């Protein structure tokens, strides 16, 4: 029997495992997933935890539940990948060989990258919401918040889910309004980008939302250090932003094992072919989800579309055929905008998000780049879709791996 190993049983690893379960010849292949963490988190849910909309328990299920029958989930960490020997070194020194390796090790926050972030004020006045612990601690901090300077801050791009800090800002505006604290709070959004988002049309639309919600934008701000004494963010060009409560997205990096294995880029993401998703490290190594360095959003929807492409390419690779599919960078993200409304954006490597209808051209029912109640309902329904369809590699009607150009209004 040949061996296929999936490193990481998070969103991307679980999705590709379920595709393989449906398509791979079971008698020929032994499939093993490696992941030290027993819990699978619905990560988009972390956004709602600080506001008490979800509890952390609402976002969590056992990983084992989503591992297809006949595949083994080994709950062990990996210390190194040795592509030239086709083997992994597991924690404790045990070796595991493979014929094909799929790396799905994701990304993680590294607050230590910024001076003064993981310091005296960490999880007292400075919080993240990209970890379960961070989201829960931030919930408590918001409960006790009495107004002042609330600062939402992005340290460095790329980050997982680039819309999450925007959504956090919009929800904070709603939450503080509801609690009667909005007129006692100044909300400031601090970003190293030149505007609210990375793509021009969306940046313009969201810029208007910022103005309407009275959220100040501090752009082109690259943090040099955080002054714990004076409670200020200080930039490389010596601007200062004071805070009473700082919600930061720390630097995102690939997994530690990519760093120790020595083939990652500057942020330990893996050099990966943008189209085929084959790694540039070894031909029998493929990469999916946040672990790649492809210039697409680091988002669950991207992992989902990548899985639909990657399954075809891996099956072709096994049969010694040419890769039939090319990933186009397709991402699809709801942007919760508060007061039970939301946006939806759909884009890829070549086409930025624009207005239109989704998933069916002209019909919708969802509107692109437009605030609506239905988009909010879509966002809230998404948790069910995630657990019951996406992880299990079931198709959503009308939603294709490659982005559709139809139904979209592109600028002339």
């Amino acid at each position: 029997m040949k061996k296929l190993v999936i490193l990481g049983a998070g969103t991307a690893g679980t999705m590709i495992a379920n595709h393989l379960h449906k398509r791979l010849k079971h008698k020929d292949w032994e499939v093993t997933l490696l992941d030290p963490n027993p819990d699978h988190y619905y990560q988009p849910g972390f956004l709602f935890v600080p506001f008490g909309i979800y509890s952390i328990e609402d976002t969590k299920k056992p990983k084992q539940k989503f591992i297809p029958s006949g595949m083994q989930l080994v709950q062990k960490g990996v210390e190194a990948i040795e592509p030239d020997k086709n083997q992994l070194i597991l924690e404790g020194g045990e070796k595991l060989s493979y014929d094909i390796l799929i790396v799905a090790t994701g990304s993680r926050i590294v607050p230590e990258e910024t001076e003064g972030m993981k310091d005296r004020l960490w999880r007292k006045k400075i919080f993240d919401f990209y970890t379960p612990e961070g989201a829960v601690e931030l919930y408590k901090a918001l409960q006790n918040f009495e107004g002042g300077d609330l600062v939402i801050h992005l340290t460095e791009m790329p980050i997982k889910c680039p819309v999450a800090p925007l959504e956090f800002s919009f929800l904070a505006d709603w939450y503080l309004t509801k609690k009667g604290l909005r007129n006692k709070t100044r909300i400031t959004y601090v970003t190293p980008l030149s505007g609210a988002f990375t793509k021009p049309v969306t940046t313009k639309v969201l810029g208007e939302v910022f103005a309407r919600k009275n959220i100040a934008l501090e752009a082109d701000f690259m943090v040099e250090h955080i002054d714990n004494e004076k409670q200020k963010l200080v930039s490389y060009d010596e601007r200062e932003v004071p805070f009473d409560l700082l919600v930061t997205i720390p630097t995102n990096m690939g997994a530690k094992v990519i760093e120790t294995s020595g083939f990652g880029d500057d942020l330990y993401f893996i050099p990966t072919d943008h189209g085929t998703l084959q790694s540039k490290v070894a031909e029998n190594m493929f990469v999916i989800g946040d672990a790649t360095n492809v210039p697409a959003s680091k988002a669950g929807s991207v992992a989902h579309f990548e899985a639909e492409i990657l399954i075809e390419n891996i099956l072709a690779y096994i049969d010694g055929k040419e890769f039939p599919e090319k990933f186009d960078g397709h991402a699809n993200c709801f942007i919760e905008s508060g007061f039970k409304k939301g946006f939806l954006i759909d884009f890829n490597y070549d086409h930025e998000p624009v207005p239109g209808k989704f998933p069916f051209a002209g019909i919708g029912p969802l509107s692109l780049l437009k605030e609506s109640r239905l988009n909010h309902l879509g966002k809230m329904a998404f948790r069910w879709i995630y657990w019951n369809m996406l992880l299990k590699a079931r198709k959503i009607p009308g939603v294709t791996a490659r982005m559709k150009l139809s139904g979209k209004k592109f600028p002339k």
Partner: protein
Amino acid sequence: MATATLANKEVEVTEEGFLVNPDDWTEDIAKEIAKQEGIELTDRHWDVIRFMREDYKKNGTSATIRHITKHSDITTKELYQLFPKGPAKLAAKIAGVPKPVGCI
């Protein structure tokens, strides 16, 4: 896409003024773009510009701030002094390489 005349040379540029073909670049073009951006080029600017060009040739992508500081003796602080506001973007523009895609 549009064309612009930089240092008496007709070149293709993007809407934001980045050279479409890095091979069109000359030192005079760098000086002219820098001037438009209000920057007087010093030796230290040229160190960054040369790094950006060599790195682009090697990797096929434009260097991010993290990449520049990791692979040269230039610090982030210095980058912000040399190329204010968005150093990676500005240095790429003057060095005639594409706008960095670090921001997705």
